[in-house]
């Protein structure tokens, strides 16, 4: 059921629309809904990794502080409607885009890459713990 009163946030390019609580930050909404938005400093306005570009509803976000603007200047692909996800509190329906350089790794790509990394790590660990022998399915451990 869709709650008419709750603000709705659409994330592009994944094109996922989710409900948010009034006053929640964009970063929190993204995290709650498994939408990947980086946040290196933990959402404390001390980096620019949660950069988003607002496509509609700029006026429905909390005001931008000078501190946020300073961090934003380091963001890649800075646009006039750029905001930091961690500092933007939501007070209405909005549409935001996660810039391409971050969203290139979104969705299935992330899962695929993560699986790949795990596979590689596994192979690496195997060859490390067992440098002489070939990786094999046998259970017995060689000393």
């Amino acid at each position, binding site marked *: 059921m869709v709650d008419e009163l709750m603000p709705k946030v659409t994330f592009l390019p994944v094109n996922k629309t989710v409900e948010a609580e009034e006053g929640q930050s964009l970063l929190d909404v993204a995290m709650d809904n498994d939408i990947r938005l980086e946040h290196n400093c933990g959402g*404390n306005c*001390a980096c620019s990794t949660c950069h988003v570009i607002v496509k509609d509803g700029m006026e429905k976000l909390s005001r931008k502080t000078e501190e946020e603007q300073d961090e934003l200047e380091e963001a890649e692909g800075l646009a006039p409607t750029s905001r930091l996800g961690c500092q933007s509190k939501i007070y209405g329906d909005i549409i935001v885009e996660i810039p391409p350089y971050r969203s290139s790794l979104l969705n299935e790509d992330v899962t695929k890459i993560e699986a790949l990394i795990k596979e590689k790590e596994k192979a690496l660990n195997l060859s490390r713990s067992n440098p002489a022998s070939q990786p094999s399915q046998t259970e017995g451990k060689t000393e």
Partner: protein
Amino acid sequence: MNTDQKTYDITVIGAGPVGLFAAYYAGFRDLNCKIIDCLPQIGGQLTTLYPQKFVYDVAGFPKILATDLALNLHKQAQQYNPKICLEEKVQQIFYLEDRAIKLTTDKAEHFSKKVILTAGAGVFTPRKLEPESAKKFENRGLYYMVKDTEFFRGKKLLVIGGGDTALDWALHLKDMAKGIYLIHRSNKFLAAASSVRQLMNSNIEVHTHTELKEILGNDHIQGAIIVDKSVNQEKTLDVDTILCCIGYTPNLGPIKEWGLELAGSTIKVNPRMETNLSGVYAAGDVATYEGKLRLICTGFSDAAVAVNYAAHSIYPELRVFPGYSTNVMEQKEEEKLAHKT
């Protein structure tokens, strides 16, 4: 008000990586130095925001944990015993007749010949809780920072937050407290994955999707009502102490009123890292100049530039160029030996 009457050569404001390196560098240039920071520990963002993350772009370290980088910088600075004043917020600046500078903080007055601002993004003020009842208990059972871990011994503790600060403290205090809960408004944690794993395997009772609704009690905390937002269910926890770590908001604070030439919340400096105020330098993230990149490595460079020019400005007989540390240190050792014999 306890005031240190000694006039130091340099006062560094901000004990983050750049401030700590500036303190080292002041010692290397035979200047005595004092560092002031508003946080209860050194390291700035390294130890406050991402203690368990790796930093990869510090020269000479293929990979180093942020906490370890802070500890190493502290160790490097400690060679020259800088005076470190923590939990002090710098307020005002005064120029005295003898060209010395007086800084006032919320606790004391400090005197020095030069000031280097390495304040990063500014003062990190903890975000406060919203419930009305929270104000009443602030510093009377409800805390936003840990000053002394011993204080929490034997307490029935509720930790609020899902970032590194909340988890680090919860894990640190879990065996000292009489009982410990952690609530977080989401089920996604901002803290390092290893800390989340430790938390989930610990004796800490964790409630996700949960917020604090009300604090109970009159003079002291007698309990906390929490609400699980996913099922809208309330629960009363038997706690007497609450530690709230839900993030920080940075602000340059009173320094903004000093009359410094600003660009947003950064301070304009010339190639010698001098600000428009006499005797005041800036370095690291708080400083800006054409082409400035806000990185730890460029911050270190800013610090060295600032200290070298400050050294020459205080003692004109000291050259700006410091010499090469390999030679300088060798000479210093020899001088020490000669002095002994």
